[in-house]
């Protein structure tokens, strides 16, 4: 009988703490989704007129579009029971000392202020539907970099730019939950990196959803101008409740000519979360988009960052890992569209399924007519740790240019007996050998994760790989 490696789940103790919230500390809209609720949110946020119009149009689109019929079940998600807007009764501040004690303590437990001091150029912290803290180092600010909450930016110097770009890459019509986002979005960050500016250390936004039965719909808009460079980190977590929570954020990234943007995400939502997040990037001539994505949490996940290589010689690199454990159905992957000439994409993904978890790697690589000289390599590897679990790989390649060069490889398997034997012959116990192999499987992805920048991420990514024979 073959022996199995027992891999512990991601340690969630650090993230499942919570404070009992008093209604008096928060402003909430009613459960459900109606035009009145949408208007109420808009009024609360002091939206410009065009934004209210967008919200109401999005609601109409939401009501028309069907639930996706190709992914994990969303039967447990009842929008009539989701509160779409929960605002802590505190004002946005750039001083940590002014953040209310309970919220401050939450982020301190997650290591946010410590990470800011040690390794970040700026931090934004969102609690439920609103950003409560935003700060950036003075020297970065002096370079002309803008990093602020999106609501403030909507009324500031960049209002016209935001109007020009907001939900243009990901319009409400894209899918049902993008329409939902358009109707009730709140919070998120706006980043603007001027031409030629290279931000040497990362910016980080952290999203915490604390309210039970609530949705979080933050919007992140990043514009990296010609020749500029930025590394942006996104983290998210929530305590676990017995009722469904929903995350339907939107990330729109504009990478200018010869610019570079690295966008790193460690997603560790609680296992009652429906994570229906959408991300899209548009890359101009010579620009480079780098995605580093780790998906560990959520009950159900739909997550496929998309990159449009519009400009000639633009590039995309995607490195991702998904760990689907007990009770999880994580459908993750990516989409890449090659439109410019001589564009390149390189994808490397890893997936681990255990204890009945369902992991699906879904991807598409499209090479449009005229994308001469496009090159793409996709490499997917999946490790099955037991036969209770399920793992599917669903890639699509749609190639319409003769001079394209597209390669795809995928493998699925278990821990090799030969590798175990080799390590044991070197004096390593079987238990340790199995744990080492699993650790090594994820290593080429995890080494790309920016652990050195945010201690909090060490906690999120930590897999307790205890090898035991059973």
């Amino acid at each position, binding site marked *: 009988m*073959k022996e*199995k490696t027992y891999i512990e789940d991601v340690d969630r103790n650090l993230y499942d703490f919570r404070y009992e919230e008093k209604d008096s500390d928060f402003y909430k809209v009613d459960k459900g989704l109606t035009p009145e609720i949408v208007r109420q949110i808009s009024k609360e946020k002091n939206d410009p007129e065009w934004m209210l119009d967008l919200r109401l149009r999005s609601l109409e689109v939401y009501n028309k579009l069907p639930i996706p*019929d*190709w992914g994990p079940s969303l039967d447990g998600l009842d929008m009539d029971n989701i509160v779409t807007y929960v605002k802590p009764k505190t004002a946005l501040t750039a001083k940590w000392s002014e953040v209310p004690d309970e919220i401050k303590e939450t982020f301190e437990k997650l290591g946010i202020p410590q990470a800011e001091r040690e390794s970040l150029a700026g931090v934004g912290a969102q609690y439920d539907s609103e950003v409560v803290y935003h700060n950036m180092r003075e020297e970065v600010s002096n370079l002309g970099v803008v990093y602020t909450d999106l609501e403030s930016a909507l009324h500031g110097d960049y209002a016209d730019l935001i109007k020009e770009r907001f939900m243009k890459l990901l319009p409400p019509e894209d899918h049902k939950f993008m329409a939902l986002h358009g109707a009730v979005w709140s919070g998120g960050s706006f980043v603007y990196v001027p031409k030629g500016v290279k931000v040497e250390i990362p910016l980080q936004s952290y999203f915490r959803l604390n309210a039970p039965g609530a949705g979080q719909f933050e919007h992140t808009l990043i514009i990296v101008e010609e020749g500029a460079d930025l590394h942006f980190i996104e983290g998210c977590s929530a305590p676990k409740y017995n009722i469904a929570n929903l995350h339907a954020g939107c990330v729109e990234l504009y990478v200018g000519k010869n610019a570079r943007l690295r966008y790193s995400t460690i997603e560790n939502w609680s296992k009652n979360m429906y994570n229906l997040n959408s991300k899209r990037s548009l890359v101009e001539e010579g620009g480079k988009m780098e995605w580093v994505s780790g998906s560990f949490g959520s009950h159900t996940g739909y997550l496929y960052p998309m990159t449009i290589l519009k400009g000639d010689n633009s590039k995309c690199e995607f490195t991702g890992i998904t760990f689907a454990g007990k009770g999880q159905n994580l459908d993750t992957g990516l989409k890449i569209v090659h439109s410019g000439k001589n564009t390149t994409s390189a994808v490397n993904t890893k997936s681990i399924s255990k204890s009945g978890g369902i992991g699906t790697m*879904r991807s*598409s690589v499209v090479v449009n*007519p005229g994308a001469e000289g496009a090159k793409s390599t996709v490499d997917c590897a*999946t490790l*099955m*740790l*037991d*036969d209770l*679990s*399920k*793992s*599917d*790989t*669903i*890639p*699509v*390649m*749609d*190639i*319409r*240019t*003769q*001079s*394209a*060069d*597209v*390669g*795809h*490889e*995928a*493998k*699925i*398997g*278990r821990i090799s007996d030969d590798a175990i034997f080799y390590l044991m012959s070197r004096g390593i116990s079987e238990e340790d050998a199995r744990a080492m192999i699993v650790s090594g499987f994820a290593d080429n992805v995890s080494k790309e994760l920016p652990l050195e920048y945010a201690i909090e991420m060490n906690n999120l990514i930590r897999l307790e790989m205890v090898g035991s024979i059973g």
Partner: protein
Amino acid sequence: MENFKELKVNPLPVPTWHWLKVNDADIKVLDEGVISANESIIRSDKLRTGTSFTEDEFRSLESGMGTEFSEYGYKVSANTVSLSNDDPQRSEEAVINISYEDGRSYFNSYRIEAKDNCDLTVIMRYNEDCDNDPSSGFKAGTDTRVYVGKNAKVTLVQIEEAENAEIYNNIASYIEDNGSFDVIQLVLSGRKMYNGIATKLMGKRSKHTINTGYVGLPDSKLDFNYVARHNGVECTTDINVNGVLHKRSEKCLRATVDFVTGSKGAKGAEKEDVLLLDDNVVNKTVPLILCTEEDVEGEHGATIGKLSDEILLYLNTRGIDKDLAYKLMATGRLLTVARMIENEEIRNDLISKIDAE
């Protein structure tokens, strides 16, 4: 007025984003007045014309083109040819030449069986004799169902050479312990071709191979759906597809390797190599691996696009220019598959035709 019916065929076993238009294919078929095509069957007298595997059992099998097409076939098919080898001492072969004559719609059904320890090869050639009005074309459906007994082997060779054809080729198969089902498909012509194979590897150490070579001629459309369900312990599948696409041709290959719980030690590999000869082609490749069993090995690989610079340089140093290099590599893909055919006469005939192109 002709009564047409729209069908969804070649369904992807697990759907993906609709905007990619790969979850299935749409066809329009004649719902009435479908006739059987002329067949000439060359076979030995030893080959039986009935099967032990019952029609109900054959119909219970999953087919590559899907339920809608299977139901359609049961309705319109007027003629079923059954071939069975029950003699373990003889390796049998049957050659079926199917000929289409005019602009009508055809449907033919085939039941193929190799009983325990037996070996059977069936070669099907799709040809045309369209003297009347070749431009009108014709639609030709076939439904082929295969049973492979214990330690038995079935080789199915299908060669599509009909220039004006719109072919629907539906295959379902079932393999017992240590059985082997090998498919060789050569698509050398045709306007449209929809081709689905679903195989249930039920027996332990059962084996399944598909080797396909295709050429997408200008303005043609090719649509494949290969599904291998691994149920038995240590069963294996190997799918190799090599193709060439000319201008304005479209091709979609769905190839799925499914490891069902209990298929311990199973292995599945799928590989496609597509050479694009012109712009304005559409190549879609969808290689799925589905897995609910830990102890398996699955892999897929695809190479799509132009010839690599290394190959071109190598050939150039041997005095072969770029155009000739592409021609050689294109015919090479088809010849590799043609050479797998054991029937010498047919093999040489095909090699001559491919070389002459």
